[in-house]
């Protein structure tokens, strides 16, 4: 990722969390949430890659992502 580029839209993350929880989000929480999201995405992609390799796909297909979504989400369930 380029350094000058924005990594992610902070406001958007904040909005999403705000909408779902109906609560305000304090100052740096959105960053932490995004970091958590990055972890989640990492897990998801790892699992999807494994799944794709198992099935024998070359890239990562939507199917393999969907298959591992539930498991990955369960890992990040508080």
């Amino acid at each position, binding site marked *: 990722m380029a350094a000058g580029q924005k990594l992610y839209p902070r406001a958007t993350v904040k909005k999403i969390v705000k909408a779902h929880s109906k609560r305000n989000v304090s100052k740096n*929480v959105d960053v932490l949430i995004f970091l958590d999201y990055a972890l989640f995405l990492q897990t998801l992609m790892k699992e999807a890659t494994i799944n794709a390799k*198992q099935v024998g796909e070359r890239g990562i297909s*939507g199917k393999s*992502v969907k*298959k591992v*979504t539930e498991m990955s989400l369960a*890992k990040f369930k*508080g």
Partner: protein
Amino acid sequence: MSARRSSRERPPTNLAPNPSIGGTSAQQSRITPRNSDGDQTIASAAVKETPWRTLNQLANIPRPTTPLRRASSAGPPSTRRSGRRTPSGQARTPGAQRILGSAKRPIAITPHGRAAQRELDQRRAGFTPGKDRRRSGRQQRETPLGILRALSRQLAPKSLPIVPTPQGPNASTRLNVQRGDDLDDEPDMERPRLSLPMGEDEDEDDSFLVPPRSAGLEDENFTVQSVELPRRAASELPPGRLSRGSFGSVRMSDVFADLNDPGMVADGYDSSYLAGGRFGGDDDIPGMEEDLALQGENTGTLRGRISLASGRESDIRPQILAADDTETTFVLTVPQRDPSQEPELDEPLDLPNFENDQAPDEENKVEELEETDDEEPEPQGSPEGLSGDISMQDTTQQDVEIVDAQRRKVVRKKKLKVSKHGIQYPSLPAGVVKKLATTFARTAGNSKAKINKEALEAIMQASDWFFEQVSDDLGAYAKHAGRKTIDESDIVTLMARYVEVPVK
């Protein structure tokens, strides 16, 4: 033979105080190497008298017992040395042994000691194959290495090969660690999966390939969750992607309205919206539409109840159709026949994308069929009505597909979704997600990771679910703490609660 000789020579040693006999022999044996071999040489040597020898004699007289001690104390090292130096030579050539032995012998004074030494030498030479073994044996006794080796020999039978610790306790320790530490430790704790479980769910995949049913995650079992739960108006949900509802809340009742499903489309358009709940879970049987009661139960929505019941029946039971003539068209969305239908269609269904403009082309065709169906067979009987139904369903299928595609477009355009609190929210921009996902896919080992559109869609869906899940949890923690804002401590709590789920 030496033992015998030693027994023979014991008397002279006993007479050691007597200088003339025992003392001289002992001293000679010590001084001259050759004497050790035979009694004759001893005797011959005793005759000669040199001043040096007499001096030695004198020196030895006051302490007659010392030679014995010396022999016992100094003997072993000397013999050992000789044995160490040329064990094999001694064994092979007796001559060499004799020379060497005689060279060392002077230390042993008495013939008994000599004999014993010789005996020892021979024995060692005979039995020990080499000096190395002896040395190793000594090392074993003395060095720490030997101690360690002994320890290892003690432990070897008891110790077992290391077995990787099972997941359960590992997870618990991980939890503890995280509680103590900061969030930064989280990535470290993640253990890489070292193996690929091959062929784990091959058949599952096959089954996945064959029927492209609804777009939701289908091969999971949702039946338990879908029982008796309130249903959501499916008309607002895009079939391919559920705008909200975390994974736990995704039920078949939510997915039921997937119009791509060929089996579902056969049932008809309206049923998928209002009474479709039962079709999603079960197999689609067109005959099921006949049940009035079923439809009434399944349509939880107020608006749909009346129109649906009548509409469905109209297809199969023409007799009842006569009663509710207004709503028969609802099924096939034919506005022209009855002016009263159109408002019904638009208002209650509340479909943003479903517009009448698209339908007419198809509807005209449908109309013709329908009219013939409705007008003619109504009074008569079911068989004709059924045949008409089938043809109608074909056309409606096309209809549905078109409408569906349009709806998807619309949904894609409008990014805002509504949370369960009724607040609109955007999803993360696809570019950001794609960039992150590509990076992580590359990290995961897929060097030339390509994420196609379909995969990105799935990832976005997963992201939405993730954010909803996380936000729910965070909100719950904040609420529990009596706060109105989500704090950093909430996130700490959240991440501390993460438990690694064993991979199935």
